[in-house]
């Protein structure tokens, strides 16, 4: 810019201005006249600036706050106070607004406190924004309230209250959580990899709890997973959650319209596509969360990006392509510098090493594009992390050649795979096959058919073992048992572990059922546990998982592990209910089995309710003469007895027995069981003759069907002996009991609880019937020792045996020193 009279060069002006500033004001004029070379416009301009120094200080102040305070006030209100906004001091129900915490697409979140001071803690109060109160959103809001009300877990923000504001907008009052997002927390606390995994497992537990309540979170991300200063985890915002199994009268918001509510960075591919959302959707988000916790980067984008590139719903093809293949976590560490690793108390190299292998596989499994390929539940993901931390082999395996060969074998030799329950021909076959992809492809068509055939074989084998008629002699039992043992050994060997999860779990379930059929419940439990673990982690179809779990629940109940059985039955029933077309009859039987377990946990009223629900369910689907009614009546008898309704119990058992006896090929094992239970009811009714007759028939029948040493036989013998004692048939009672001890000891060894039971009965016989405490003491002592070892010191049977022992010893002492 060239100087001119009207437009002086600002640089020149500024330079003179700068120099004049150092001078007192009375020298300005003379300085400028000398320095500006007589250019009046320049002199005037500089003088104007010099005067402006003071004027500008007064006019502008030091900051925009001084300059435009009212505008800034208006600015903050402008942002915070659209119509309908609540301001501090406003009342909503019994809550007083303290301020605003934040706002989202459809609602504002306020800080609030109880107006009456009854509750000191600050809470978060969510209200639908005016203008956003469309039917859709109101529905969603009410819905969130229902979901939260049903979710009580230490790691899920609690719903405290809810209602409608004066102008009719719904609000929710939720526990206020003061915490940091999990990723920030982990970095700021400089948690190592193990500590991060432990923290993450708590998130999994909370998500799993929600899943068990059939709630999917759908929007899991760091800002929704806070960690409080004490280190406890809190999940927030079940806002777009959706119940998996809506009630019949349910008006759940449709999922389609909620697509836009999701957070694209954490959305699973099926969410972006608008496909159905399942628990696997949360597993995906958990995968992203864990990925970020471990590597500090997002799996689909390891470089930081600007806001503009956040993927949108229905993003372009490139975006989807990126999503398909997340970077292996151990490889994602490379662009991340030393500080990132230092926040994890390691070096980049160390972190890469730490992530390689297990954690790579766990994350890639959680982040699989196809929901079917992911962990089926948060619990399954959690379990694999637990295994990793415990240095146990994880279940997310790579599809190695061996694995694929195993899969091929399963397709072709499924019959053999099931036969493996006996001889494990499969493993003798070797797994070194190498097959071309085309060939594998061609075989696929045959798979479905063969799988069905295999199921038939499995059923046959299981029935073979469960059928008491085939277990007539000790020799046969031994043969079957040794075959099972051999099968189990192979399953635990390296060979067995190398099998593909499908074959291995199918074989384990078959083994578990067979063990149970033989009465070896204790041996069936670990086998079934493993099968359940595999199916949980393998992403097996929910029905297959439910099947294995049901077998385990039965075994647990039989082993008197009622709490464990209760949990299992709850989950099995939930899995069945999740099916679109549940097998109602099966569900009814599950309800009654669950009811029986609950009765043993001391909740007989729940048992009766469950059983009656089952009967109602059954009535709608089964004909009068359906043999399965027999099982239900039996369960109903059990439930009534638990409530002390003995007449009703008697009637139910008699109806069950009648149905079974009418059958051309009656199930004598179950008849014996019902007779035994009926005997107990008769005894409680004081009808001792009928009780003895029922026990005797039950004992004889069970003895011939299952063998005299089978636990289900000895239980009946025990009851019979007690009735014999009662009416003074001591010799016969003693003979029954001694026979029991012999038989049971021969088969199960000295430590089995049935041996203990027989000892108790014998002790009772000597002490109470014969008045011979000296003879009773060793039996009680033996029983107490057996129960202590087998069931634990605090088990009721142990306590009872110890009490009897003390009583007998006291009588001995009194007899010696009267």
């Amino acid at each position, binding site marked *: 810019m060239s100087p001119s009279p009207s437009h002086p060069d600002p640089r020149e002006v500024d330079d003179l201005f700068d120099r004049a500033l150092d001078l007192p004001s009375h020298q300005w004029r003379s300085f400028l006249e000398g320095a500006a070379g007589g250019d009046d416009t320049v002199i005037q301009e500089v003088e104007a600036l010099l005067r402006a120094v003071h004027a500008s200080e007064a006019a502008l102040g030091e900051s925009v706050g001084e300059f435009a305070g009212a*505008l800034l006030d208006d600015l903050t209100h402008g942002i915070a106070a659209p119509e309908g906004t609540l301001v501090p001091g406003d009342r909503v129900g019994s809550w007083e607004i303290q301020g605003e915490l934040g706002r989202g697409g459809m609602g504002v979140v306020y800080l609030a406190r109880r107006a009456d001071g009854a509750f000191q803690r600050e809470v*978060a109060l969510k209200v639908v924004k005016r203008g956003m109160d469309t039917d859709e959103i109101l529905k969603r809001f009410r819905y969130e309230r229902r979901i939260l009300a049903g979710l009580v877990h230490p790691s899920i923000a609690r719903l405290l209250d809810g209602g409608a504001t004066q102008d009719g907008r719904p609000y929710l009052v939720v526990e206020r959580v003061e915490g940091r997002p999990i990723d920030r927390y982990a970095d700021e606390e400089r948690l190592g990899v193990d500590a991060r995994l432990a923290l993450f497992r708590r998130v999994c537990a909370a998500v799993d709890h929600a899943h068990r309540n059939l709630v999917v979170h759908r929007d899991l991300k760091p800002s929704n997973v806070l960690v409080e200063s004490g280190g406890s985890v809190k999940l927030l915002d079940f806002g777009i959650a959706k119940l998996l199994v809506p009630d019949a009268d349910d008006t759940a918001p449709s999922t389609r319209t909620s697509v836009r509510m999701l957070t694209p960075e954490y959305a699973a591919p099926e969410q972006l596509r608008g496909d159905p959302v399942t628990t696997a959707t949360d597993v995906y988000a958990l995968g992203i969360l864990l990925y970020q916790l471990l590597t500090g980067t997002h799996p689909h984008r390891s470089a930081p990006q600007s806001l503009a590139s956040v993927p949108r719903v229905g993003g372009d093809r490139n975006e989807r392509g990126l999503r398909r293949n997340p970077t292996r976590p151990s490889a994602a560490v490379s662009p991340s510098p030393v500080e990132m690793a230092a926040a994890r108390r390691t070096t980049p190299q160390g972190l890469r090493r730490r992530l390689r292998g297990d954690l790579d596989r766990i994350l890639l499994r959680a982040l699989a594009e196809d929901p079917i390929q992911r962990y089926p539940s948060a619990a399954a993901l959690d379990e694999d992390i637990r295994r990793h931390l415990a240095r146990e082999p994880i279940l997310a395996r790579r599809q190695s050649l061996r694995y694929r060969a195993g899969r091929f074998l399963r397709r072709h030799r499924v019959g053999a795979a099931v036969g493996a329950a006996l001889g494990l021909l499969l493993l003798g076959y070797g797994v070194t096959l190498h097959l071309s992809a085309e060939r594998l492809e061609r075989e696929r068509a045959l798979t479905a058919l063969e799988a069905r055939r295999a199921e038939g074989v499995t059923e046959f084998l299981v029935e073979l073992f469960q059928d008491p008629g085939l277990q007539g002699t000790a020799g046969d039992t031994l043969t079957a048992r040794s075959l099972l043992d051999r099968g189990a050994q192979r399953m635990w060997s390296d060979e067995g572990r190398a099998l593909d999860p499908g074959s291995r779990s199918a074989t384990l379930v078959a083994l578990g059922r067979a063990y149970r059929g033989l009465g070896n419940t204790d041996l069936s439990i670990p086998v079934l546990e493993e099968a359940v673990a595999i199916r949980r982690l393998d992403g097996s179809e929910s029905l297959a998982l439910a099947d294995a779990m049901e077998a385990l629940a039965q075994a647990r109940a039989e082993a008197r592990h009622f709490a464990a059985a209760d949990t299992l039955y709850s989950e099995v029933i939930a899995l069945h209910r999740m099916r679109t077309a549940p097998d109602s009859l099966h569900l009814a039987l599950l309800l009654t089995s669950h009811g029986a377990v609950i009765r043993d946990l001391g909740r007989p009223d729940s048992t009766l309710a469950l059983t009656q629900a089952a009967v109602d369910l059954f009535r709608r689907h089964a004909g009068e003469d359906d043999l399965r009614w027999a099982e239900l009546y039996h369960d109903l008898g059990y439930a009534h007895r638990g409530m002390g309704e003995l007449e009703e119990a008697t009637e139910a058992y008699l109806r069950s027995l009648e149905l079974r006896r009418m059958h051309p090929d009656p199930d004598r094992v179950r008849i014996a069981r019902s007779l035994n239970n009926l005997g107990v009811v008769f005894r409680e009714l004081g009808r001792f003759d009928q009780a003895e007759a029922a026990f005797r028939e039950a004992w004889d029948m069970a003895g011939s069907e299952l063998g005299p040493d089978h636990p289900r036989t000895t239980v009946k013998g025990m009851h019979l002996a007690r009735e014999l004692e009662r009416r003074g048939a001591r010799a016969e009672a003693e003979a029954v009991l001694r026979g029991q001890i012999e038989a049971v000891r021969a088969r199960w060894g000295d430590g089995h609880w049935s041996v203990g039971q027989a000892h108790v009965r014998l002790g009772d016989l000597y002490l109470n019937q014969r008045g011979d405490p000296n003879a009773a003491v060793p039996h009680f002592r033996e029983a107490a020792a057996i129960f202590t070892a087998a069931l634990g010191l605090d088990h009721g049977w142990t306590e009872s045996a110890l009490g009897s022992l003390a009583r007998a010893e006291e009588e001995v002492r009194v007899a010696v020193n009267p």
Partner: protein
Amino acid sequence: MPPTPDRPLPATPDTTRLLRAARQGDRTAFDGLYAHLYGELNDLARQRLARFRPGQTLDTSALVHEAYLRLVDQTQVELQDRDHFLALASRAMRFIVVDHARARSAAKRGGGAVPVTLERASPAAAEEAEDVMALDEALTALEAMDARLGQVVELRFFGGLTHDEIARITGRSVPTVKRDWTRARAWLFRFMTKEG
């Protein structure tokens, strides 16, 4: 859905990482960071309102410093990152205020739809909106003349930074900074009051 009740500031994109990338000359990160801060400061201003009773004036200095403490992982950055952040935040603050003035002025003239309850706004605010727009024009002219003076206005006037902070950010001595601020302010006043 409503955001996290207690910390509505989104965790992504990670301010700390953007900041460091921006210092290393990543232009995308720089743009991203600026856009990010613009949003964060808006959020923060709203939150401060929640804590203050109505009638208290927004303190941009506190806002900018609080933003730094809340958005940046202190263990992950160097001192110069902090300077960089404060400078960017000051700039974001400038545009937040100016954009609001513009929107406010447009609303008053019946133009765009602005989510402001006009009955709540004071007449003073309306005048100040015009003043702020004039000041921004003056600042733009000052920047064209001397970018260094323009920066001082942003840091001091909009960011509310201390002379010490500005000295460190600009690499000049504290007396020079004070003097630059005096000059810059005089220039602004001059531009704003000059006829024509």
